[in-house]
């Protein structure tokens, strides 16, 4: 369009006004340099701005022509809106100042609003991920700002800003996370390459391959990292189709965004990039067509030929794509770390193995000689009676047959069935060695390595309290095994408590009010001998009775009564080494808050910390005795709580059970606050520790004490239900919410 025609078009837009000729020409010259599209967009806003201020409109056109590169077309309406609003607030000068620096005044704040910060959305993203996946996955901001997973945690960039709209960014963020879970669920990190796969790559790249897992396989490629990325792309189509079936809504809404992002890269780069973009486009279109590709033999179950064609695919990708194309691939599918994933999987496999063995051993019948000094038979289930174990050493097929029939015969408790399911997904079947180990464990009790070591003499019984400890292997107690020593915490003057009170000021006020409602539970007690009002029901009954010739009752009144809460609660706080840092800090904060609001309820409560080393020294630190008044001393002792040694949980639980039994409260509660598994230096670990703690809690329940646990362990799901009993624990995954959750938990327990 020539200058004249352009000027005429402008004059038509602003008609009937007649602006200064020279002013218009100046602007038109500036506009002549911009693209046709841009000019059309800029002029389309003229009718909006012109009536408000002619000068503003001309400045806008001049500035808009200059900023062609920085302000994308889709943001133009928003830019104009903000220009007008700064004109309203600051006049022409204000608007010009606003326009002068489009980057600082317009785009940056917009990015800030549109940008997704993981910390902001983590609170809802983690439950979303866990709900969708059904796995205890975690989400952590990655230090190197990349996207990857070790199969237990998904690491994501701390921030994501790919689109102008915040909602779009959030959606895309969610999708990227789900895609990472998709790779975990599809078993990409668990692929077991066949011998032939290794032979193929060995020949292709001239390396010697020994066999092994997927990370060993990828290590055969010239650039293992690049090979890993290629593998994700190779797998992405099938993963997306599986996900698309699960979450069609997500795919439907993310598809336009995904394509938009790919379009940004289109047109630039060579055919290699086009090829990559087409492959990536398949990710969202694959999900659309459920029957799109024959995938038989490519899923984890039939994983045999899963890597067929991968080496060619890898070479095609490396041949065609340049370094900057890889960036896009990494942005969307992540930067896989197969070695870390393999390590994590191995760890999980080991945990599952241990759990499986101990759980299975628990339901197998005990060998009579196993009950050495035990008092009770223990945990043998009724269904286990029908099982016969292999006698002596069986070999080969027989072993296998026995193992399998063993599993088929036993009706597995849900927890064990879940572990078995996980092992089967991972390894295809439960290895016979697992079952043999379990059978071995269920047999004669063995001495505990370490614990029965050099300090195996009787404990010196002096000022300490001595308790038995449960050894699940022999299904019996070790008599007088642990010494609990009550100690005083040094009363420290720190600013911790005042600071905490300051920090949670608002929350404390709110919680106090809630807890006050606990204290003042009034209820109408019916059928009283005296009271505030006549109980009409009782009256009718009495008249009826009298008519019928019975002696009518004299309980005819309703009385408003305050329910007496007769509750004694002991809080037992884990002071082990692992609570060092912010976990310990938040546990302490939770205690400060709890003490403040507990005062309102009038319930009796005490607080103890525990830690220690070896069975001869299980230290129990006094913070507040049950009937001690809450005051500065208690506050100072809370301030002095800090990480110490190990977590031998059984003895302190037994000791506090004894303390609670000494009280005359009608309701006795023991609440344990911990951050992980029980563990001590002398072999008190894993199943032994879990079973002893479990036993101690069962003993507590047996004597009428309600024992509950609040745990802040991130990966605690497997053993918690077993140790504390279903429904007897809560799990705080957002540690920041511990102080609030803890108080709420107490409230829901006792209301």
């Amino acid at each position, binding site marked *: 369009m020539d200058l004249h025609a352009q000027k005429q078009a402008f004059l038509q837009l602003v008609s009937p006004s007649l602006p200064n000729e020279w002013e218009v020409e100046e602007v038109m010259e500036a506009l002549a340099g911009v693209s046709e599209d841009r000019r059309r967009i800029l002029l389309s806003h003229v009718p909006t701005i012109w009536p408000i201020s002619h000068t503003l409109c001309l400045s806008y056109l001049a500035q808009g022509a200059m900023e062609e590169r920085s302000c994308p077309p889709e943001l133009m309406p928003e830019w104009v809106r903000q220009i007008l609003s700064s004109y309203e607030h600051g006049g022409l000068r204000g608007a010009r100042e606003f326009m002068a620096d489009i980057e600082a005044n317009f785009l940056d704040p917009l990015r800030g609003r549109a940008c997704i910060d993981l910390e902001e959305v983590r609170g*809802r993203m983690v*439950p*979303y991920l866990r*709900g969708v996946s059904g796995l205890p996955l975690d989400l952590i901001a990655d230090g190197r700002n990349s996207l990857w997973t070790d199969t237990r945690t998904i690491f994501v960039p701390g921030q994501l800003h790919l689109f102008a709209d915040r909602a779009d960014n959030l959606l895309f963020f969610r999708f990227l996370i789900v895609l990472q879970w998709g790779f975990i669920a599809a078993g990409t990190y668990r692929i077991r390459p066949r011998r032939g796969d290794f032979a193929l790559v060995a020949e292709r790249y001239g390396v010697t391959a020994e066999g092994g897992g997927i990370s060993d396989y990828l290590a055969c490629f010239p650039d293992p990292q690049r090979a890993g990325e290629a593998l994700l792309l190779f797998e992405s189509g099938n993963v997306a189709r599986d996900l698309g079936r699960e979450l069609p809504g997500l795919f439907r809404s993310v598809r336009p965004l995904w394509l938009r992002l790919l379009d940004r890269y289109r047109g630039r780069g060579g055919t290699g990039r086009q090829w990559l973009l087409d492959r990536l486009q398949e990710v969202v279109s694959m999900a659309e067509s459920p029957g799109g590709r024959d995938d038989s033999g490519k899923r984890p179950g039939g994983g045999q030929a899963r890597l067929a064609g991968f080496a060619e695919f890898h070479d095609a990708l490396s041949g065609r794509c340049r370094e900057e194309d890889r960036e896009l691939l990494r942005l969307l599918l992540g930067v896989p770390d197969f070695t870390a994933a393999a390590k994590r999987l191995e760890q999980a496999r080991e945990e599952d193995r241990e759990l499986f063995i101990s759980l299975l051993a628990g339901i197998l019948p005990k060998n009579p000689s196993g009950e050495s000094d035990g008092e009770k038979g223990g945990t043998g289930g009724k269904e286990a009676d029908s099982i016969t174990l292999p006698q002596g050493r069986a070999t080969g097929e027989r072993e296998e047959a026995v193992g399998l029939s063993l599993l088929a015969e036993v009706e597995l408790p849900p927890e064990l069935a879940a572990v078995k399911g996980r092992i089967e997904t991972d390894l295809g079947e439960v290895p016979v060695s697992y079952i043999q180990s379990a059978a071995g464990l269920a047999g004669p009790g063995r001495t505990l390595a370490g614990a029965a070591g050099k300090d195996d003499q009787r404990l010196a019984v002096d000022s300490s309290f001595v308790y038995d400890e449960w050894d699940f292997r022999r299904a019996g107690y070790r008599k007088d095994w642990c010494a609990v020593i009550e100690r005083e915490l040094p009363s420290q003057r720190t600013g911790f408590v005042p600071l905490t009170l300051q920090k949670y000021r608002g929350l404390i006020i709110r919680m106090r009010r809630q807890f006050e409602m606990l204290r003042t539970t009034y209820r109408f007690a019916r059928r009283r001998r005296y009271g505030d009002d006549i109980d009409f029901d009782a009256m009718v009954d009495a008249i009826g009775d009298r*008519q019928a010739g019975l002696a009518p009752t004299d309980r005819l009144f309703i009385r408003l009564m305050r329910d007496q809460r007769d509750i004694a609660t002991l809080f037992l706080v884990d002071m082990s080494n692992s609570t060092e840092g912010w976990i310990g800090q938040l546990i302490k904060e939770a205690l400060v808050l709890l003490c403040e609001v507990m005062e309102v309820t009038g319930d009796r409560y005490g607080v103890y910390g525990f830690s220690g080393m070896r069975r001869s020294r299980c230290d129990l630190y006094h913070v507040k005795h049950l009937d001690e008044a809450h005051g500065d001393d208690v506050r100072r002792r809370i301030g002095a709580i800090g990480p110490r040694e190990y977590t031998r949980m059984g003895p302190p639980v037994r000791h506090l059970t004894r303390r609670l039994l000494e009280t005359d409260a009608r309701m006795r509660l023991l609440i344990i606050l911990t951050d992980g598994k029980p563990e001590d230096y002398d072999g008190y670990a894993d199943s032994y520790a879990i079973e002893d703690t479990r036993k101690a809690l069962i003993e507590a329940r047996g004597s009428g004490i*309600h024992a509950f646990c609040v745990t802040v362990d991130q990966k605690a799901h497997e053993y918690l239900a077993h140790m504390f009993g279903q*429904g007897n624990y809560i*799990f705080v*995954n957002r540690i920041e919410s511990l102080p609030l959750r803890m108080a709420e938990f107490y409230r829901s327990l006792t209301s």
Partner: protein
Amino acid sequence: MKILNQQPIEEHRIALEPFYLPQANEIDLALAAYHEQLPLLLKGPTGCGKTRFMRYLAWRLGLPLVTVSCHDDLSTSDLIGRYLVRGMEAVWVDGPLTLAVRHGAICYLDEIVEARKDTTVVIHPLADDRRELPVEKLGVLYAAPPEFMLAVSYNPGYQSVLKDLKPSTRQRFVSLTFDYPPPELETRIVKQEGRIAEDLAASLVKLATMTRSLKESGLAEGASTRLLIQAARLLQHGLDIRTACRAGIIESLTDDPELLGAMEEMVQSIF
């Protein structure tokens, strides 16, 4: 003295077969308990089909079903009965328990832990081998006929220590544990009861399964089958699926904004 029967037992009879798909062997167990004259304890999360099961059982046995929803103001007179004055005459009105005992019906005490413990003690003589109900005011000891069955239900998921069943009460019952049905079964239930297409029902069940795995992340209980049916019913009236899920399911589960956000995103991901 006149005994007034205000509520004819026939009103409690269930005429049409209630829709019920067995989860496991609960029907066989309940029938065995019935024939052995043993009382039933149904436990399970809310909305998983306990009450529906009782209705089905009553229909199957051809017995009337007298249901009492327990609350903490429930007195023994409310269960057993009381005298009322009509004109100048005192008339006795049976409570639901007496009604069921006298007519050989099933008496179902729903959410028994909500009732005060001193009230629930009245069921003790009925729940052991004596199977009798003393009605003090009438001076009568009703022996329960063989058809009579006592059933109670409660939800062990509530963590309040103040609401638990006394061992002396608990240890009289044959216990049936209910849980949310497995996905295929639950899909069929939602499809049938919510009158929706199978794939939609399957998606609703998927959503429910996801919310159930939030239980340890702060959600007291995941979405029940009842809520799914509720959402499905909303769909009948032209509401879109996301609105129906929001109003019918997730908003009913919690007030926590973050959990609500997470579940909202699950809805968006599925539908």
